[in-house]
């Protein structure tokens, strides 16, 4: 069976930030499918297969780039639900956020986030952070979501 390509999920309420992440991933040579969610609810609906929108598919590896400050369900809560779920907990979650507050970073790590990137206003560092992320995605074997395991 052909190895399925990683799908990148971006949960980000600021469309501008999502566009910038997209552009920089492209510039770093990442051509994977990217799905953008504008809030925590939509992200959870997709992953937990709720509501009417698109849902995640079994057998496909996903990686989630997650902003912390979103209206409604925030990134920390999304992370908590993902890492508390047997089926989803292996999915890599990378926090991409403007806060460098050590308490928030610690909380994210305690909940089990795989990586934490501070969105720097300095564009060059942002670019290099996303490029590193691109390299990370190329070398790391991303586990896919497997529905059968759960049953």
């Amino acid at each position: 069976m052909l190895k399925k390509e990683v799908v990148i999920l971006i949960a980000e309420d600021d469309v501008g930030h999502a566009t910038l992440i997209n552009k920089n991933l492209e510039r770093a040579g990442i051509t994977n499918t990217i799905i953008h969610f504008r809030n925590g609810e939509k992200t959870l609906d997709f992953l937990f297969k709720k509501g009417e929108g698109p849902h995640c598919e079994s057998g496909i590896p996903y990686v989630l780039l997650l902003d912390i400050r979103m209206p409604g369900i925030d990134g920390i809560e999304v992370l908590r639900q993902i890492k508390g779920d047997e089926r989803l907990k292996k999915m890599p979650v990378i926090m991409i956020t403007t806060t460098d507050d050590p308490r928030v970073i610690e909380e994210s790590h305690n909940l089990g986030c795989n990586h934490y990137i501070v969105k720097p206003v300095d564009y060059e560092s942002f670019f290099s952070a996303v490029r590193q992320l691109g390299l990370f995605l190329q070398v790391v074997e991303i586990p896919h979501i497997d529905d059968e395991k759960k049953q």
Partner: protein
Amino acid sequence: MDSQFQIQIIWIVSAVAVGIFFAWAVYLLVYARIKERRSDKEREQLSAKLAAKNNELEQIIHITSHDLRSPLVNIQGFSKELGYSIEGLASILEGVEVRESTNLQIRAFLENEIPEALQYISASVAKMDSLLAGLLKLSHLGTVVIEIEKLDMNSLINNIVRAFEYQIKDAGVEVGISELPACMGDKTQINQVFSNLFDNALKYFSPNRRGTIEVSGFMEDEKSIYCVEDNGIGIAPENQEKVFRIFHQLNPDTSTGEGLGLAIVSRIIDKHHGSIRLESEIGKGSRFFVELPAA
């Protein structure tokens, strides 16, 4: 009988007078205690209220400075994107034949006007970001719990000198440290105080002479007093109080920081129930006196 009656009356009057006096004294005492208790309680309530307000203010600073950074990411990010687009346009135009006068006009836009505008946008964003980062730093300072311990100031100052070794060598500065008394304080925060004072001294040396920084200390009335002295450009009397204000920079065009160093110093010292004062003369140098509880 009359005189006996008189004596009795005098006794009774005196007893009543003494009774009233004691009652009055007791009343005054009780009143004073109640008032004292009430004012203690009021003071407690007031300081709790003040602490809550302070906390709220710090929260507001924290949230707004964080939220204000978010749009800055877009302004800076898309300015850079525009820059890339202009580079792309310029390289496409390389291979296109246009009239010489038109070509000159296009070049003026692509090579001067637009990049200049973008540069101003980027510089302003960077400035605003550094101000917001400063605000965040200050608000973090308010929430950190301090751990007071006995501090060996000789080793603390030596460590700071080691940390600044490169800048000290680079600026050709001579550093002298006398034997320093110990004090009570939070190690990280007191380190920050003296690092900022060093940083400050290193920033404002006079180009006309070799720079020196002297650190000395003595004890007085259960206080340890430290003096960080430099022979830099000095601070004018009218500016001496302003240097401790947030975001105040005496030479905004030449200095690199965000104007927070001494504001942080003063805040940390306040939290330690200490004090800081400054003696300075233009062209001669400055002396910062830091007073902390003795160990």
